[in-house]
């Protein structure tokens, strides 16, 4: 009981500290954006790290949806809406969620271990001593870089995914090409697009915040950095799936 209470207050304290950290990242953002090179470099880092991975995974996820979608829709004789079916699942669910999970695994872990190692080797202290605030110089650019790349990566994942489902559906399984695209165009509404974009933005903020936070607060040992990296992936995955449910529920109740 005492332990439970301590765990609970400990969690609240960490959560409070996390919110303060997020607040500082946001407050410092305009200043960091004035030096766009700091951010573009991080976008490039996060984006380039994940790009090929995102494209390969996007293609195969799309292809599998093409397969599954086709075989299930064929039972009702409605293969024609395969394009619409793929586009909606990719845009609203699979695109944002899988991109965020891949992002956490690739770019998030890289961020957490990089910052954690800087902590371990006193690089962050050295910056503080040079009167350079590591929250501004290290944490904020990486947070922004991650948060900006996520929607871009999601868009790429979704597009490549649709291409993948087209490859399986149209040339291989013989769905009518005209129907594939026209059903998609007619069926996808602006609300669907916005839902996907909203998710990718929220997931990007969450994944980047968690990675930067874990790295920044890593225990300064090799083991501590390892733990921070693992926690980044695990916590991000849980948070993303919970947020996904909440945003979807919200979107459905509004729509």
């Amino acid at each position: 009981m005492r332990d439970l209470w301590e765990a609970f207050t400990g969690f609240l304290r960490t959560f409070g500290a996390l919110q303060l950290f997020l607040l500082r990242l946001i407050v410092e953002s305009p200043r960091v954006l004035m030096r766009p090179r700091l951010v573009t470099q991080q976008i490039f880092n996060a984006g380039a790290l994940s790009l090929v991975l995102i494209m390969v995974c996007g293609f195969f996820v799309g292809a599998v949806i093409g397969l599954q979608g086709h075989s299930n829709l064929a039972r009702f004789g409605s293969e024609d809406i395969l394009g619409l079916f793929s586009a909606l699942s990719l845009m609203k669910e699979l695109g944002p969620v899988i991109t965020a999970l891949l992002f956490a695994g690739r770019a998030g872990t890289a961020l957490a271990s990089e910052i954690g190692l800087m902590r371990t080797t006193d690089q962050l202290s050295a910056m503080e001593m040079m009167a350079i605030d590591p929250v501004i110089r290290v944490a904020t650019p990486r947070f922004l870089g991650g948060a900006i790349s996520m929607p871009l990566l999601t868009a790429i994942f979704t597009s490549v995914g649709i291409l993948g489902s087209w490859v399986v559906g149209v040339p291989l399984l013989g769905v009518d090409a005209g129907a594939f695209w026209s059903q998609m165009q007619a069926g996808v509404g602006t609300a669907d697009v916005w839902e996907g974009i909203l998710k990718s933005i929220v997931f990007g903020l969450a994944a980047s915040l968690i990675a930067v936070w874990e790295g920044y607060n890593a225990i300064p040992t090799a083991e501590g950095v390892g733990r921070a990296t693992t926690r980044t992936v695990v916590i991000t995955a849980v948070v993303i799936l919970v947020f996904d449910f909440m945003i979807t529920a919200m979107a459905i109740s509004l729509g």
Partner: protein
Amino acid sequence: MNADHIVEIEDLHYARGTRPIFSGLNLNIRRGEVTAIMGPSGTGKTTLLRLITGQLVPDRGRIRVDGEWLAGLRRDGLYALRRKIGMLFQNGALLTDLSVYENVAFPLREHYELPERLIRHIVLTKLHAVGLRGAAEMLPTELSGGMARRVALARAMATDPRILIYDEPFVGLDPISMGVIVRLVRRMNDALGISSIVVSHDVQEINTVADSSYLISEGKVAASGSPDELSNAPSELVRQFMHGMADGPVPFHFPAPDYTSQLIGNGEGDDDA
């Protein structure tokens, strides 16, 4: 307040967990001098430097640096103060994603809008002073420990600080570099009129550069004075340290359970002492 003192420490108390590191330390560092801080490994010399630079906050007591009480400073004030301080970290702490050149240029680029030619001039001058102009394009991971520290020294000097703090600057240097760095510390101090704090175990080397020394042991200043005064001090403890004897008032061992019983392994010794 004493205008002669660049750093004043009054009744400093600081503990890591339950283990006290400092208990009532008083220490003044005079402006324009090279002051040595000596003490056995693990007494808290690095901790003291972190307290002086405001990276750690004392449990009790006050610290004044260049006329300002650290406790009264907010982050802006603290950062303004740190711009006057250059610090050489015990392990160098170079930024591993930047080249040697960019490491030294880093504080210049962050703090000032300087034309590239001027930055280049400053960086190469500082690297030349530590004998590593030729290593400008190397990455920190390609340097040896001693080279990394010399680059860190060049970086600490880059912005021409008023106070230079060196944490173990002589460790891992060959005799030639050592001689050069010792003279560099002295020359920087005298030519630029700055104040220097040098932490070192190295009694011989430190005696050649320091104007005055403090010997710290068990959370307090155990002795202070000029190198000569320390060498000839009557105190048992000072003699032990200055002449490197294992037996004496300073324990060579970190606090530990009884050796014999721990070796015999009856388990009692494994508990937290």
